[in-house]
């Protein structure tokens, strides 16, 4: 058989080549398009959040500064003498006593007095808020609104500001802060890490290095994969039944000490942390197993070859080269826990607490719960502080993930250079 022209004549080869090239180009474009779409959505998400964080706010003072000190439109223009006078005269006696019990009025700085007056006497109320784009392009709308409302004025405001991070929870969106929720989130993370990391890494080492390939272990492995895909609210139900109800004496701390806040009823940081530890456990196990799998077998063999035991091989050879991946996987799993809302709502995290969590037996709220709660309120300004809290949560996540990348790079760089 003559196969000389089986691939076609020269012009056929060329036209086929053209077709193949075009085909490749189309797919190339499809991939570029999908990447661009993904980036576009991300930008939209970020934009919609940031849009609510900055913008004009229409306010109306309950008591105008001019009434307090005639002729002065802003509290900031008050003299020291006027500030002290207004504080002592106009503050309700209860609040005044509380403030003076910390330090006397004369010891407060001007700035502190101004914020006291604004918070307790002037008490501006939010009438309406505008997003960043509206503030930029529809400024006339803002002016018209302010002109239509008696005694109102507009301010360009950033809802995220230093005192937002350290402020108490408050029913006034202008003064509400996320300190309690932030502390709650950090406490929960600590508990989650302390339980999920050792148990997860231990289980992964067993499954990857010790377990023989039999039916039981294959079933175990399959179940761990399945568990990592279980909806988080189910972990919340589990946590409610086990940690909050059955183990109440442990999780409320009443077993150990009588000094705890017994209104928590087991809905404590410990319960929340343990619930989230259960949630991320399968993820940590899978990530750690992947890290151990990536260690070449030749390393284990060379270790056994000079008379090392299994444990010496794992501890001195396998873990040092996989620790960076294990830590990265763990931090990513913790980032997931940081953003979880549903399981904590189910086990009964507090929605409004004014006291900072002081230990593992405290009641708590977390950032996602705070965001959820704020965004559910009808008043416009809560949407703005919810957005500001979202930005804070994103910053925290970004810090954690950067820490993961930094740790990994640092450890692998160290491995490359010396020992």
């Amino acid at each position, binding site marked *: 058989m003559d196969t000389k022209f089986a691939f076609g004549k020269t012009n056929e080869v060329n036209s086929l080549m053209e077709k193949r090239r075009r085909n490749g180009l189309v797919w190339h474009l499809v991939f570029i398009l999908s990447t661009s779409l993904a980036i576009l959505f991300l930008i939209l998400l970020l934009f919609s959040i940031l849009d609510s964080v900055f913008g004009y706010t229409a306010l109306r003072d309950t008591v105008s500064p001019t009434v307090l000190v005639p002729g002065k439109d802003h509290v900031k223009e008050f003299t020291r003498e006027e500030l002290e006078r207004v504080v002592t005269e106009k503050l309700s006696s209860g609040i005044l006593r509380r403030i003076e019990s910390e330090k006397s009025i004369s010891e407060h700085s001007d700035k502190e007095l101004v914020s006291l007056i604004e918070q307790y006497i002037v008490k501006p109320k939010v009438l309406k808020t505008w997003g960043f784009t509206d503030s930029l392009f529809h400024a006339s709308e803002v002016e018209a609104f302010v002109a239509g409302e008696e005694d109102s004025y507009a301010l360009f405001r950033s809802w995220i500001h230093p005192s937002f991070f350290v402020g108490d929870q408050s029913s006034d969106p202008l003064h509400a802060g996320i300190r309690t929720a932030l502390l709650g989130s950090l406490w929960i993370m600590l508990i989650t890490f302390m339980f999920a990391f050792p148990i997860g890494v231990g289980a992964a080492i067993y499954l990857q290095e010790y377990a*023989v*390939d039999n039916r039981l272990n294959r079933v175990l492995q399959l179940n761990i994969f399945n568990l990592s895909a279980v909806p988080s609210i189910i972990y919340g139900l589990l946590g409610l039944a086990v940690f909050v109800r059955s183990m109440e004496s442990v999780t409320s701390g009443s077993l150990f000490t009588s000094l705890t806040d017994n209104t928590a009823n087991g809905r404590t940081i410990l319960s929340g942390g343990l619930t989230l530890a259960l949630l991320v456990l399968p993820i940590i196990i899978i990530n750690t197993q992947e890290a151990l799998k990536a260690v*070449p077998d*030749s*390393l*284990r*063999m*060379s*270790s*056994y*070859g*000079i*008379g*090392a*035991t299994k444990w*010496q091989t794992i501890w*001195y*050879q396998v873990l040092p*080269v996989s620790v960076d991946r294990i830590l990265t996987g763990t931090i990513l799993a913790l980032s997931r826990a940081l953003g979880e809302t549903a399981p904590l709502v189910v086990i009964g995290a507090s929605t409004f607490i004014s006291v900072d969590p002081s230990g593992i037996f405290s009641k708590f709220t977390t950032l996602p719960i705070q965001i959820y709660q704020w965004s559910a309120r009808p008043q416009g300004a809560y949407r703005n502080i919810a957005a500001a809290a979202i930005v804070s949560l994103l910053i925290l996540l970004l810090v954690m993930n950067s820490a993961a990348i930094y740790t990994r790079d640092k450890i692998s760089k160290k*491995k*490359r*250079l*010396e*020992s």
Partner: protein
Amino acid sequence: MSSTSYAQVVSADQANNYKETVIELKDVNIRYGSFLAVKDASLSIYQKHVTAFIGPSGCGKSTVLRSINRMNDMIPGSTLKGQVLFNGHDLYEPQVDAVLVRRKIGMVFQKPNPFPKSIYENIAWGARINGFKGDYDELVETSLKGAALWDEVKDKLKQNALRLSGGQQQRLCIARAIAVQPEIILMDEPASALDPIATGRIEELILELKNDYTIIIVTHNMGQASRVSDYTAFFMVDEKRTGYLQEYAQTEQLFLNPQHKKTEEYISGKFG
């Protein structure tokens, strides 16, 4: 006068040829699951000699090698029937600790696999985990000298071993193996991943090492087997892909005067 000289010659000859069996395989059958990888292998390995295992791919020579320091234990499903005697003791008795076996019978692998640690630590680690109480600096130096690597690395002992060339890495692996003072060193195609110059160095090293150690080497390179070994075992594979020992003799005899047709065909390059 002439009779005494004759006696002297004979006794000297006997001393030269005096050989003590250190490893003895008796009817060894190795299975991976239900697959019979090697059947009925019986041979003796002599102390302070180099024994080469040759044969076509899949003939089970590496499997037999790994059975000598129980490295096959690492492969799930592998089982061994028969006896592997080390100084008269069966290594597969239930009370024998495989870790101790591997400490006495070291191994060098096909692909150089130093630990991703410093050169110094590569040598010292094996000694440390085995409870060495002597001078580590001295141990590192003698081990590296023993592997003919000292002069090349003495100024960079803190450097990561992975930065060495392939040939240097393999000699480091040999140094690492001798640092725990084994009696036997198993080498699984130690030069197959190296260039000819590095290969030559490894071969020289093997000839030096046999003054102190018993060496068993698996190789695909017939020239290498004839250059370095005193004894050669030729393994073949049957139609069921089961390996068996076809011929075992002094290297010179096996290469110059093979007793089996298969051996002759293999060493003359007709298949393999």
